[in-house]
């Protein structure tokens, strides 16, 4: 199975990089741009074919390493 993890800063945490991207987009003339948040996507190949097991394993990976839950949140997609 394949898992895709999205890691984003928590909503309450300021994202200076997203803010810089927003500023650059408006400079380029994209006047419609509101808030921008920047995150990470991590793709993981897994040996298991058990969807629930895959999700549980990836959740543990997120909590132990892939996200810093002090400042970040994560979403897991099993595909």
């Amino acid at each position: 199975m394949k898992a895709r993890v999205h890691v984003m800063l928590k909503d309450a945490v300021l994202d200076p990089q997203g803010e810089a991207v927003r500023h650059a987009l408006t400079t380029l003339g994209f006047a419609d741009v509101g808030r921008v948040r920047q995150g990470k996507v991590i793709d993981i190949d897994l040996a298991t074919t058990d969807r629930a097991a895959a999700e549980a394993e990836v959740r543990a990976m997120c909590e132990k390493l892939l996200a810093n839950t002090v400042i970040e949140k994560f979403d897991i997609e099993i595909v």
Partner: protein
Amino acid sequence: MKAAVITFPGSNCDRDLARGFELAGAEVVQVWHKETELPAGTDIVGVPGGYSYGDYLRCGAIAAQSPVARAIAAHAARGGYVLGICNGFQVLTEMRLLPGALMRNAGLKFICKPVTLRVATTDSAYTAGYAAATEVVFPVAHHDGNYSIDAEGLARLQGDDRVAFRYAANPNGSTDDIAGVLSPNRRVLGMMPHPERAVEAAQGGTDGSALFRALAGVMASA
């Protein structure tokens, strides 16, 4: 005082930190990140600045999972001293030995300059050599030094007098101007500025010497 200074792939302040300890009279052992045990009799572990593992994933995140990190955690759990500077501070927060996290600087720029700090508490082996509210100048050199902690965690740090240093003029957006924090038992210190780069006149200042000397004094009397 016996100090173990860790070297990760990408550490670049390990020799500076070793020199800081040596000038205070310490016996220093350099320890490679693949070691699973610290040298016998280690009093204090120094986790140096640099770019461990290329800052992949998050600064300090991979180092926090390295074999030596488990030995450092065990040392801290025994009540041992741990000093993490710059990337070392990031590693200690990623290990959850210290609360909070170091985020990208608010201004997004890498900052490399001497900064003025205020000693926020003298109640630690690291800061006992300074008078209360003393101003010291240490260099900073970081891209991710923006200390972030939630309101509850901040209240705990403040209530327990665990902020060790504050910036006189906040360079990076850190919450409450925090430049360094202590663990609940006050034996683990993480800080972004570099006291080990302020221990010899040739470095432009010696304000960091008192930190290493105070540590040596505590170890000698222990």
